[in-house]
């Protein structure tokens, strides 16, 4: 219980940091901290596999991409812009949503399941059980999600692609050399990284 309270406090502080910090990199780092705390939550629940996946996918891949983009675009600190009332509106909506969430959670008639039951269902939290759920019970849904992600990725690539010259099939050696030089100029072109998203 003490562990839970400590972890909960840390993760809430991290989540507040994401919203309140002005510097985008600091906000992203606070999010990384929150995600790592969530991974520790999984560890305390004996779900080791989920914890590892949480760290690899969220902290290790997605947030690295976030930070990469923030650094590449060199986003500066944001100050109150032309519409100062917008922030107060956002605060109001946020407080309302949080209140709604708390009321919803407290009014929920469902009971917390017995921990022994949960532990039996997790079976030590290893990969086999999750694989069974993903690849046997929900095979079709899993495959469809994969196709959906692929579609999103192809769409993103299609959106950022510049129009090709008509004779794209037969690029002269000169043009290719020029293209290479241009690519060499920019470290880590965003298209390349886009394709790396998981």
């Amino acid at each position, binding site marked *: 219980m003490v562990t839970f309270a400590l972890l909960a406090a840390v993760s809430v502080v991290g989540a507040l940091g994401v919203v309140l910090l002005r*510097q985008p*990199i*600091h906000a992203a*780092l606070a999010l*990384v901290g929150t995600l*790592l705390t969530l991974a520790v939550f999984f560890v305390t629940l004996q779900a*080791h*596999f989920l914890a*590892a*996946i949480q*760290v*690899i996918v969220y*902290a*290790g*891949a997605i947030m*690295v*991409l976030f*930070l*990469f983009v923030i*650094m*590449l675009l060199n986003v500066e600190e944001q100050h109150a812009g032309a519409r100062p009332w917008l922030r107060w509106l956002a605060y109001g909506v946020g407080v309302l949503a949080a209140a709604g969430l708390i009321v919803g959670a407290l009014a929920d008639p469902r009971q917390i399941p017995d921990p022994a039951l949960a532990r039996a269902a997790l079976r*030590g939290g*290893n*990969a086999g059980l999750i694989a069974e759920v993903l690849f046997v019970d929900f095979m079709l849904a899993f495959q469809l999600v994969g196709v959906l992600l692929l579609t999103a990725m192809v769409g993103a690539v299609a959106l950022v692609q510049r129009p090709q010259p008509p004779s794209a099939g037969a690029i002269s050696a000169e043009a290719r050399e020029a293209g*290479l030089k241009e*690519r*060499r100029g920019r*470290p*880590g072109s965003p298209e*390349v*990284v886009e*394709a*790396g998203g998981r």
Partner: protein
Amino acid sequence: MDPLWVTFIKALVLCLLLLGAFAYMTLIERRLLGRMQHRRGPNRTGPFGLLQPMADAIKSVFKEDIIVTNADKVVYVLAPTISIVFALSAFGAIPGGPAGSLFGLNPWVVDLDIGVLYILAVTSVGVYGIFLGGWASNSKYALLGSLRSSAQIISYELGLGLSVLSVIMIAGTLNLREIVEFGVWTVSPWLWPPLAIAFVAFVISAIAEVNRTPFDLPEAEQEIVAGYMTEYSSIKWALYQMAEYVNMMTAAAFISTLFLGGYRGPAVVERLIPGSSEWPIVWLVLKMAIFMFLFIWLRASLPRFRYDQLMRFGWLYLFEVALAATLLTGAVIAFVL
């Protein structure tokens, strides 16, 4: 399961061993590079230069610790700490011998069911150290270095993950100790070609992940000064160096554990000296030494990739080869065995 205090002491000892090994790896590396380049390397401090690491340590501790005025102070100090903390934590899951072989103790810090994923997860968080350091320095060369490192590490993580899959599919477990005990090469000769391909792909990706030549673009000194650590000095710079060498050792141990039987000795020696395969630590350290030598050898022999070559190699060749190895393993398991 060990009691908590035993785990704690083992973790402490492991950290000290890794840092000691780091100190002497710098000496070994410089001496070997000297040999390979027809010069002597550091040999003045103590016999064979053996006291050189001490001199280096004293020097880096007493140098002025500069914090750049326009740096983001918190992140600037945090970054090298992240690097070294996650580098040291990753090694804990590597088993050093069979259960209870180290004077009745287990020669590992933690025995996780998801050991493979643990090491991949911890090393992938370690990247933050490098590229936050480059950003916090508020210098364009440092920023370029950190952008390069994040793009490179994400690209090569795919090759790394895919080539591990072959081993996991054959052994059917994510526990490193069980993978070693299983012995992936003993299953069937049909599995040797995909395993060999996966092994080569894994070694190449691992070298890219630890930023060693020919993949050391984040710190390419001819192009971007020293990349992400340009603005670091004194002990913070030393922390980055430690993290790099500890990561190299973890990579070497990880490769040995996955593909080369980890802590188990070769069968030939086992036949000559029965029971030698059960010795803890010895075989793992020997196998690690082979890979550390390989890393140094490559540094002395290969020029650095150009950035576009690095990306093309990672995405167009390494990724496909690793994928082919995985598919081949799957096909052999499904249709032949």
